[in-house]
């Protein structure tokens, strides 16, 4: 079985490496210093288990996992992150609080081996759903564009549009696709800035220059870029209350 360690601190990786020596059935195939290397290594080696730090350069551990289609089993290692710990506990995912000893480490491995037969994938998915609502993560969205990773600051977004199983995120650099639901974004994004103007649209109110009537009961919001975003009757009410009209 293959394992990968992803942590930005050299010594933090070396302690995991040391503890891993007691588990010869796990072969350490890669050590990564940040999320980008992590994604590459996971695609290359298809590991069975990863040890993942949360606070890392560029993209954090949760954001990295979001970008992987079928994430492997994860044991999180973190020093202090109240929010993350709550998320772990809620979804029965194992985590190691730094500093941890060999005993605690062995326990985590044993738990993983035991659960390996049952599916942990859903738990990880649920965890990511909760984690993406953390304050540190709600001001940016990480997307994959081909092989490139793009970090979109939330205030750059013009509007979001539903597209089958994906959501199109329209930005100054064109649009990006993210495999999430509109409901997810409606929850995660700040309701004072982003309003669900229509079943299939969420609009950044700071981008709106005017709202025009359109056909019978509907309206259309004109953005600074000239783009037109449909506004349903309910959406119009929401927009009015956010804009204080």
């Amino acid at each position, binding site marked *: 079985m293959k394992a990968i360690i992803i942590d930005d*601190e050299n010594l933090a990786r070396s302690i995991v490496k040391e503890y891993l020596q007691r588990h010869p059935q796990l072969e350490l195939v890669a050590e990564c210093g940040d999320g980008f290397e992590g994604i590459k290594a996971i695609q290359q080696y298809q590991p069975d288990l990863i040890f993942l730090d949360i606070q890392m350069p560029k993209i954090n551990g949760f954001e990295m996992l979001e970008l992987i289609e079928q994430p492997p089993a994860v044991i999180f290692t973190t020093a*202090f992150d109240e929010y993350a710990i709550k998320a772990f506990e809620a979804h029965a995912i194992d985590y190691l609080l*730094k*500093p941890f000893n060999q005993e605690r480490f062995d326990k985590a491995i044993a738990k993983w081996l035991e659960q390996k037969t049952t599916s942990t994938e859903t738990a990880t998915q649920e965890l990511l759903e909760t984690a993406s609502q953390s304050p540190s993560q709600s001001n940016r969205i990480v997307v994959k564009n081909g092989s490139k990773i793009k970090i979109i600051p939330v205030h750059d977004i013009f509007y979001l549009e539903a597209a089958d199983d994906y959501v199109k995120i329209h930005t100054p650099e064109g649009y990006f696709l993210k495999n999430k639901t509109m409901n997810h974004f409606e929850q995660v994004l700040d309701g004072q800035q982003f309003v669900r103007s229509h079943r299939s649209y969420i609009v950044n109110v700071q981008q709106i220059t005017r709202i025009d009537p359109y056909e019978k009961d509907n309206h259309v919001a004109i953005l600074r870029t000239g783009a037109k975003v449909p506004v349903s009757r309910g959406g119009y009410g929401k927009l009015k209350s956010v804009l204080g009209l």
Partner: protein
Amino acid sequence: MPASPFSARRFLITFSIAWLVLMADHAILLYWFDFPLKAAIIDSIISNIPLLGVCLLVMNTIRYYLPGREQYMNILIMCIVLTILWLLFSKWLLELSLNSFGDYEEFLHRSLIIRFSIGFLVLGIVTMMGINWFTWQEQQKTEERKKDAEKLAREAELFKLRQQLQPHFLFNSLNSINALIGIRPEEARKMVQQLSDFLRGTIKKEETQWVSLMEEMQYLQLYLDIEKVRFGNRLATVIEIEEETQQMKLPALLLQPVVENAIKFGLYDTTGETIIRLETRKQEGELIIKVSNPFDPETSSPKQGTGFGLKSVQRRLYLLFARHDLLVTEAKENIFTTVVKIPQMPGA
């Protein structure tokens, strides 16, 4: 204590209605006693409009100078004096305009005491209501301020505790020590020492204390040494202290959050090596400290970068010097710079 426009309007409406009733009552009463309707109405208007003026004057006065309990006697005397003045004034006006009506003059003289009683009663009631109303408002505001102040103090205390502990830094350092024990025990021992000295420095110093730049730099060096063990080759520092700034003073523990911000911003935003620069100089008698770090303008806006610990430093500087211009940040190309200015307190 300026009232909101809403309550001011409500006040005016209340007064208008009360006076309409009062004037109507006055006129009807005179008419009942067989005065011509015109005379009754003129009498009512001439008596009551000045009374309204006096009442509004009193209201306006207590709105800005709310009397204390010990001044109630003065208020009573003021009411009597004002009523007499009002009575003299309206008597003069009434005589001027109504003496042509038969035996009006005699009636006016006989009714003076009644006019005085009613005027005094009205003024007294209005004054009492005003005092009650404004006292109640004042109390409400004091209560609110007290609550706000308490909440602020609680939050500040919690935040300070959290800041002092710096859990993220502490636990990561302990984790590094744990790793070093296995591979390089000598270094582990050294790091334990550094971490202890650093924590002692944090606990020992009061935030109100002033220290020399040299002292603060020693403390900062401990912090940097620990961070270097954690991040290894990825973190490099360049420190340039000008000779003449060494003995200049600054509030204790002020620099560490600035440098911590630079390290986090730099290290967490770039995957390669990060060089943190710290320069000091003296300018117009003020101590200038410049801290800079690289960042990637592609992935993070500097706006995000100021969020970390700089707010609290800014707040501290404001509380100490009442100036907002002492901490300035600037993002140019891919370098983020924080400049802190410390005015030198004479004798500090």
